[in-house]
């Protein structure tokens, strides 16, 4: 298993290089640059700026320089925020996005997973229909409606939770409640559906039939024999989904005015802040690769069929 993981990490390096190159060329294919402004700069100043950031070189050479910088651990300077490096900006925003994403995914796994199990165990009964109705509504409600709606209800009408921001005088957990719920609702919906489907299948499996035949109590059959197998599809989904959630959500960060990298990313892409965009892409790709790997490892631990004795 360890060799497998190491081999996957080695494959990850060329994959990462491809992603960087792909994103780099895509970004430079977009018209305009970081110094294209409404008000035209004198051409010689613009040329000097471009020279300073190496933007006057051929794109291939720029990529080479960028990757060279990465190898030395240098993400480069931001091209729009003149006094900050990309590493500074990421260090400011990434923790907020990561906490939001982790919180949302934890909530989604607990709530969605639990609801899915209940629905599967009570298949075609009232509880099942209730959970599935909830899940389908959850998929259909866009966060950009849910977010403002919850702000209005919890924050303004009832005044129980803060509507936005992260600090007033000190950091309080209350500020994270609404954004985490908003971010996790679609995840809850998808996970509960996945969980229900795979749990139904697991409950029909021969292993579960044997466990029942042995006379094990139903709770033990469900928790010990059916659940580990039923969790597999959920885990393969949760890996990349967690990466996506931790890389920040533009909608949630905008609606709740949180300083995360999801918002930074969209703004940076609009302003052609090449290095900042590449920085976020890099964070996202590394997260994707790592969580896919972790999901696969968890898969091996849980799935009795792929377990090596």
């Amino acid at each position, binding site marked *: 298993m360890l060799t497998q993981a190491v081999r996957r990490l080695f494959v990850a390096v060329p994959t990462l290089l491809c992603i960087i190159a792909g994103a780099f060329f895509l*970004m430079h294919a*977009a*018209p305009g640059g970081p110094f294209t402004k409404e008000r035209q700069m004198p051409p010689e100043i613009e040329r000097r700026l471009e020279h300073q950031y190496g933007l006057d070189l051929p794109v291939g050479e720029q990529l080479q320089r960028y990757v060279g910088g990465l190898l030395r651990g240098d993400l480069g300077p931001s091209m729009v925020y003149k006094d900050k490096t990309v590493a500074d900006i990421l260090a400011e925003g990434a923790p907020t996005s990561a906490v939001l994403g982790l919180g949302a995914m934890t909530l989604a796994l607990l709530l969605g997973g639990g609801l899915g199990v209940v629905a599967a165990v009570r298949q075609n009964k009232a509880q099942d229909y209730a959970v599935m109705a909830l899940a389908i*509504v959850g998929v259909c409600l866009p966060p950009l409606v849910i977010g403002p709606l919850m702000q209005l209800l919890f924050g303004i009408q009832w005044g129980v939770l803060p509507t936005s921001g992260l600090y007033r005088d000190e950091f309080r957990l209350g500020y994270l409640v609404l954004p985490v719920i908003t971010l996790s609702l679609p995840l809850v919906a998808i996970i509960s559906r996945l969980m229900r489907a795979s749990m139904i299948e697991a409950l029909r499996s021969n292993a579960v039939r044997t466990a029942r035949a042995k006379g094990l109590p139903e709770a033990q059959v469900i928790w010990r024999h059916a659940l580990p197998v039923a969790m597999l599809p959920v885990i393969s989904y949760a890996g990349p989904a967690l990466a996506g959630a931790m890389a920040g959500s533009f*909608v949630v960060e*905008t609606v709740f005015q949180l300083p995360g990298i999801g918002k930074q990313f969209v703004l940076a892409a609009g302003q052609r802040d090449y290095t900042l965009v590449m920085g976020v892409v890099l964070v*996202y790709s590394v997260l*994707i690769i790592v969580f896919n790997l972790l999901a696969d490892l968890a898969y091996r631990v849980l799935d009795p069929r792929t377990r090596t004795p």
Partner: protein
Amino acid sequence: MTDILLDETPSAPDVVKGRSLWEDARRRLMRNPAAVVSLYVMAVLVLLAAFGPFLWVHKFNEIFPDQVAIAPTLTDMHLLGTDTVGRDMVARVLFGLGISLLVGAAATLVALTIGVAWGATAGFLGGFVDEAMMRFVDVLYAIPFVFFVIVLMTVVQSDDATANLLLIFMAIGAVEWLTMSRIVRGQAISLRKREFVEAARAAGATPMQIVFRHIVPNVLGPVVVFATLNIPVIILTESFLSFIGLGVQEPLTSLGRLIKEGTDQMVTSPWMLIAPATTMLVTLLALNFLGDGLSDALDPKER
């Protein structure tokens, strides 16, 4: 399954099996009340979106300067009120619904075409080609979707609203085909070694013919299910694009754009949010129930 396959002659491989499979699925779909209701709801919504804007008394871009942001009223038939510019909300919701459905259908079509062709080719050819094609998909998967759309939308920058709409189809479709190609590839791999493919090869069919005449028709089941469930995803994606200002541009509008405008006026003029949000919810619910029904109906295990 096998006895059906044995009946097939190389000259009419899909027709025989296809008909019975689809007929069977149709019957099972019709037994699912949620799916049937959704089918009717979708029919009504499509008709409303197609003809509503022409039949309704107001036009979607007609401005009533003395009736700005009024609540739902019978005066002048502003049944859902007007927006902050003084445009009739019924007309705008009908028009927005049409654009949203159009975006959903067109982008799905783009995703479908690329995804099916890519996945079927990779799965059928296998080996090195398959490996290379799927690694390409993996790489694209790891590039954040917003980034793609932003770049695509700005590379072919256009101030023309209609051209911009086409661009949205392309941009979303260009992102959504990835999952499609994975599904189709998995199916194609399991089909590759089947008897009817071998029969076709023995009869001298070229790889291209085998992929498009024999593999593709047989993966249509999961493809249809994915497409149905993908339309709501795309409608939500478009609303996200509208939120960041890259979606449908004025004078056109979409449900997502209307919702975005509605959330800004949520406290003072709630009807501006309620009407488009409800319409979108109903549309997405119907499409989701329909997709679930189709996936049950086409599931070979349920037969």
